[in-house]
């Protein structure tokens, strides 16, 4: 092994070989041999000396004089495992737990911060959500039944109604007239003077598409159901008190005060959905 030696003002580096300048016994390990003491013959009184020879020489009978005996189950061996060293896990422990003299209770809070956060934080959010689900289910139970709600809107196939015809449908317990108007009817309704009407509404206000007129079939006077395609104005006629409605459902003659109510409806592909919610 190369070593650097300084001596005074010179420094010489030994590349190999022993360093001759060091004392010769450096590094020689003095192995201390354990001294075994023959304790059996430590005492030198005549009695002990004589006993020390008589016992080995004469104790046993002739054939067992030179016997080596091993007891197999004469003592109980307790295996203490004192050769097993418990490994040091300090590198893997939390710093707060390294001091064995501090009670665990003192370091409990920071140690338990993460599990507590997970339990109450995430768990809390999940409980709130679950609570919301429960309450919404209860509330929805008390709300309108699904089958009833299904009747809230009806779909009418437009191809079912040829031009010039009016068909009646039931919606929310009331009759609805769906009229497929011809071009002549449309032009007639649009040219009516709004100022002459009892309930002034232009036809554009009452239809989304000109050829389709959707009105609730309940007379605004006292609630009878008018008859479609009758009356003097090419619309509806209420037989109860003689109210005449035109092709747009507006009151023209008779006791009714208001035009026939136009429900909320929408066009969906080739059908009309009345009562879109």
């Amino acid at each position, binding site marked *: 092994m190369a070593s650097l030696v300084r001596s005074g003002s010179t420094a010489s580096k030994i590349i190999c070989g022993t360093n001759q300048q060091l004392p010769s016994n450096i590094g020689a390990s003095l192995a201390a041999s354990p*001294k*075994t*003491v*023959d304790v*059996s*013959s*430590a005492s*030198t*009184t*005549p*009695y*002990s*000396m*004589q*006993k*020390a*020879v*008589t*016992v*080995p*020489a*004469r104790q*046993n*009978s*002739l*054939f*067992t*004089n*030179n*016997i*080596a*005996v*091993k*007891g*197999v*189950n*004469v003592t109980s061996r307790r295996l203490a495992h004192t050769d097993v060293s418990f490994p040091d896990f300090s590198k893997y422990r939390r710093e707060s737990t390294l001091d064995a003299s501090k009670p665990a209770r003192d370091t409990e809070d920071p140690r338990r911060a993460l599990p507590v956060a997970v339990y109450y934080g995430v768990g809390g959010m999940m409980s709130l959500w679950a609570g919301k689900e429960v309450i919404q289910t209860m509330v929805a139970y008390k709300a309108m039944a699904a089958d009833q709600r299904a009747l809230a809107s009806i779909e009418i196939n437009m191809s079912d109604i040829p031009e010039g015809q009016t068909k009646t449908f039931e919606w929310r317990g009331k009759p609805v007239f769906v009229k497929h108007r011809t071009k002549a009817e449309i032009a007639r309704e649009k040219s009516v003077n709004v100022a002459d009407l009892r309930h002034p509404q232009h036809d554009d206000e009452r239809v989304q598409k000109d050829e389709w007129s959707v009105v609730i079939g309940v007379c605004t006077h006292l609630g009878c159901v008018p008859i479609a395609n009758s009356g003097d104005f090419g619309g509806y006629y209420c037989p109860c008190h003689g109210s005449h409605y035109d092709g747009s459902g507006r009151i023209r003659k008779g006791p009714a005060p208001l035009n026939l109510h136009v429900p909320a409806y929408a066009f969906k592909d080739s059908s009309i959905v009345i009562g879109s919610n």
Partner: protein
Amino acid sequence: STMLSRQAVRSAHAAARSAAPATKAPEQSTKLPSGLTVASVENNGPVAHLVLAFRAGSRYENGQQAGLVHHIRNMVGSDSKQYGGVQLVWSAAAAGSEIHSFSTPDYLGVRLSVPRDSSTLALSVLGHIAADPAFKEWELEDVLPTLKHDLTYLRTSDLVFEDIRRAAFRNGSLSHPLYASDFTIGKYSGDELRRFASSRLVAGQAVLYGANIEHERLRGYGDVHAPLKAESGSSAAASPYKGGEWRREGPGSLAHVVIAGQGAAAGDAAGLAAQAVLVASLGAGNALKFGAPAAGRGTLAGFSKQGDVGVSAFEQTFEGEGLVGAYVLASSSRVAEAVKGVARALKTFAADDLEAAKKRAKMDILRKAAHSADAATSRSMEILAGLKEGAVLAAIDNVTGSQVESAAKKASSNLSIASYGAIANVPYRDQL
């Protein structure tokens, strides 16, 4: 009432006295067709001592396998081929049993002591843990530290008695150590252990001995249920006494020295009897616990009276060979004269007060047979050596002074010496 009248009690005592004295039931022995020897003795004790021993001691290792039997001995209690080790040991322990595995240079075995009532379960456990080990590699790895513990707890006397065999038998098989050494622990793979076990742990080389168990039950187990291979196995290679010395420096200020010469072989009852009388005559310190050392009698007893020296005669026997001599513990300054004195005592041994020595020898044998556990282990090894029950004890009565002296002469003619500790002053073999 007159149920316990004085007269009635006296006559009951008289009747008991005149009745035949309680005799020990003789040992029952059967040789099974598989080659297994089954023997049992009924002492009417509450604890059954069951021993399954094999001729699989350290002498059956080959030259490169020193310490292999130590591995096998310590693996007793691990998994067997059919059952898990924990299963076996725990079920036995739950029944109240105590299991020891043992080995000598000649033999390897397992003793299981269990309350009589649970002896059926214990017997089946014994068969599996002693005769059918699996030596699984991961269990062997787990057991190796126990071998290291065994070495740590070795006493100096164990060390020096291993060395005397190294000195006496040189590189013969009887010199193989009972314990593995630091560099042989873990040297043997499971395969090597299994190979050793399959060649040595066979019925023809085994004895199943039970104290306090019915012979029929033991025989039935040995015949039908014991997981023993019905092979005869090979006999041991001879390891003749050569003589030599072994010196080992060690810590402390004392020197442990064993001086030994050739002794009687294990199957030779008459020789063992003479050797026993020789050892009793030489002296071995006080047999009683806490007894004063001065009360020890014998030729060698005089050395210990000087203080700073402890001397005890010892004997060991193996199949085909034996050792007899003395174990000396002395401070470095006294060891030379102590060792030379002991060698001189052996060489110039004269049998005086033979009857006292015989009585002491018999007393020694009987005292050591008093505890059934050790007696069971010992008897199982005697059966493998080919000794009949009480043969040595009976032969002591017929020992003559000349037999004892010739035993001493045989030993002292070629002495071996092994020493450990502060051995600077321990004499060499040619200085004895």
